[in-house]
C-alpha cells in the first residue's frame, strides 16, 4: 500500500528532475557553443529578421495600447486624490520598467517560441537533425546558437522601440483625450526619465529573449513521435517560456528595486 503510494509519488518526481537535468545540460551546451567557431552568420541574420523585424508590428501594437490604457487608468485613479499631473511619469515608469519588456516578451514567446519549437521539432521527427550530424555539422551550432544569440540581442532592441511607442500611446491619450498640455506632458516625461528605468527593462528583455529561445529550441529538440509530438513541443515551449518570463520578471525586479 505505502510502497504503491511512494511509487506513484516517485515516478513524476524522478521524471521532473531528470528533465531538469536534461534542460541544464542543454543550456550549458548551447551557451558553450556560442563562443566556439564555426559561426553560422546567415542563420543568425535570418533569426534576427524573424525575431526582430517581423515582430515589430506585434510589439508596436501591444505597447501602444498598453501605454494608452495606463494613461487612462492612472488618470482616473490619481484624480481621486488630485494627483493627475503624475500621469506622464506613471506612464513612463510602467511602460519602461514593466509593460514594454513583459508584454513584448510574452507576445514574442507566442510568436517565436512556438515557431522555433515547431521548426526544430519537425526537423527532429523527420531526421533532419540526424542528417545535420551525419554531414558533420553540429546541430547545436547550426540551429540553436544562432537563435539564442539573436533573441538575446534583438529582444532589448524591440523593447527600446516598444518603450518609445508605449510612451507615445500614453502621450496621445493624455493630450487628445485627457486634455493635457502637450508641452507640459513632454516636459514632465523627460524630467522624470531615469536611466535605471530603461536599463532594467533592457536587462529583463535580454533575459526573456534567452528564455524564449532556450525553451523553444529545447522543446523542439526533444520532441518525438510525429505530428502530435511537435504539437506538444509547441504548446510546452509557449507555456513554459511564458511562466518563466513572469517568474524571472519578479526575480529581476526584486534584484533591482527591493532594498
Amino acid at each position, binding site marked *: 500500500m505505502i510502497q504503491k503510494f511512494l511509487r506513484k509519488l516517485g515516478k513524476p518526481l524522478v521524471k521532473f528532475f531528470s528533465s531538469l537535468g536534461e534542460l541544464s545540460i542543454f543550456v550549458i551546451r548551447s551557451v558553450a557553443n556560442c563562443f566556439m567557431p564555426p559561426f553560422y552568420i546567415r542563420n543568425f541574420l535570418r533569426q534576427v529578421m524573424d525575431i526582430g523585424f517581423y515582430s515589430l508590428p506585434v510589439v508596436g501594437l501591444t505597447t501602444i495600447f498598453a501605454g494608452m490604457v495606463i494613461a487612462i487608468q492612472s488618470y482616473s485613479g490619481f484624480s481621486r486624490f488630485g494627483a493627475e499631473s503624475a500621469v506622464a511619469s506613471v506612464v513612463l515608469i510602467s511602460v519602461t520598467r514593466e509593460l514594454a519588456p513583459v508584454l513584448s516578451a510574452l507576445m514574442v514567446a507566442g510568436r517565436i517560441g512556438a515557431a522555433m519549437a515547431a521548426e526544430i521539432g519537425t526537423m527532429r521527427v523527420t*531526421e533532419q537533425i540526424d542528417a545535420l550530424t551525419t554531414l558533420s555539422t553540429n546541430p547545436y551550432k547550426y540551429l540553436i546558437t544562432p537563435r539564442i544569440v539573436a533573441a538575446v540581442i534583438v529582444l532589448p532592441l524591440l523593447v527600446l522601440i516598444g518603450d518609445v511607442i508605449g510612451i507615445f500611446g500614453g502621450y496621445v491619450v493624455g493630450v487628445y483625450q485627457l486634455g493635457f498640455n502637450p508641452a507640459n506632458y513632454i516636459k514632465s516625461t523627460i524630467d522624470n526619465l531615469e536611466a535605471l528605468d530603461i536599463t532594467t527593462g533592457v536587462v529583463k528583455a535580454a533575459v526573456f529573449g534567452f528564455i524564449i529561445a532556450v525553451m523553444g529550441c529545447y522543446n523542439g529538440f526533444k520532441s518525438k513521435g510525429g505530428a502530435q509530438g511537435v504539437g506538444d513541443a509547441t504548446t510546452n515551449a509557449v507555456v513554459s517560456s511564458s511562466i518563466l518570463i513572469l517568474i524571472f520578471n519578479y526575480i529581476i525586479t526584486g534584484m533591482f528595486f527591493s532594498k
Partner: protein
Amino acid sequence: MSDTKIKITDLHKAFGRKVVLDGVDLEIKKGESLVVIGGSGTGKSVLIKCIQGILTPDKGSILVDDEEVVGVSEKEKEKLHSKMGMLFQGGALFDSLSVWENVAFGLLENKKMDKKNAKMEAIRVLRQVGLAPDVADLSPSELSGGMQKRVGLARAIATRPEIIFFDEPTTGLDPIMSDVINGLIIESVKGLGATALTITHDMASARKIADRIAMLYKGKIIWQGTVKELDKTNNEYVRQFINGSSEGPIKVEV
C-alpha cells in the same frame, strides 16, 4: 592495415527496459556492400545510429578503420562523420534550403568550397543520380518521393564518403522506382569504391544491392552469408523472413 572497415563487437543497447541490441557482432570489409535485414523494430536503425555515434551504446566496441568510435569526443565524432554519408528513410532533406544547397551542404559547410563551385558540383552529382539541372533550384517539397530519394542519395555521395549508410532506401517507392534506386545505389557505391551498410526489409532490394547479407533478430545477428548462401540456408528464421510467411519460429508481437 587490415581490410576490415567496420568491426562491431558485443554491442548492447537498451532503452529503459527494452533491450534493442543484445550482443551484436559484425564485420564489414573495405569496399563491401553489406545488407542487414530484419523485421520492423528489431533495432536495425539503432545499429546504424550507434556506428555513427548519434546513439551511445551501453556496452561493446565499434572500430572504424581500427579506431574505436564508442565514447569519443564531439570533435572526433565530427571527423568520423566526414568519412560517412547517409541516405535517410524519409530523405531528411532540409526544407529551408533549395535542392542544390541540400546536395552541396557538406561541401559548403565543411569542405569550405565556394558557392559557385559547390553548385556546379551539386549539379554534376544530381545528373549522376538522373536528375536534370533545372531541379537544382527547386525546393525539396516540390519533388516527388522518388526524386527526393535521389536528392538524398546525391547529398549522401556528394562529399565522396568512404562509408555510406542506407536506411530503408526503397521504402515507400513503387517496384520500378525501387529498382532504379537500387541501381543508382550500386553505381554510386562502386563508383566511389565506398563501403556500404544498408538496412532494409525489402528482399528484392537486399538481393540486388548486397555482397553479403546479415539477419538481425532479437538484438543479435543470427545469420550471415552471401545471396547464394541465403537461398540454400536451412536457418528457419531466415527462410521464414525471405519467404514472408507468418508461420515459423518468428512470432509477430501484436
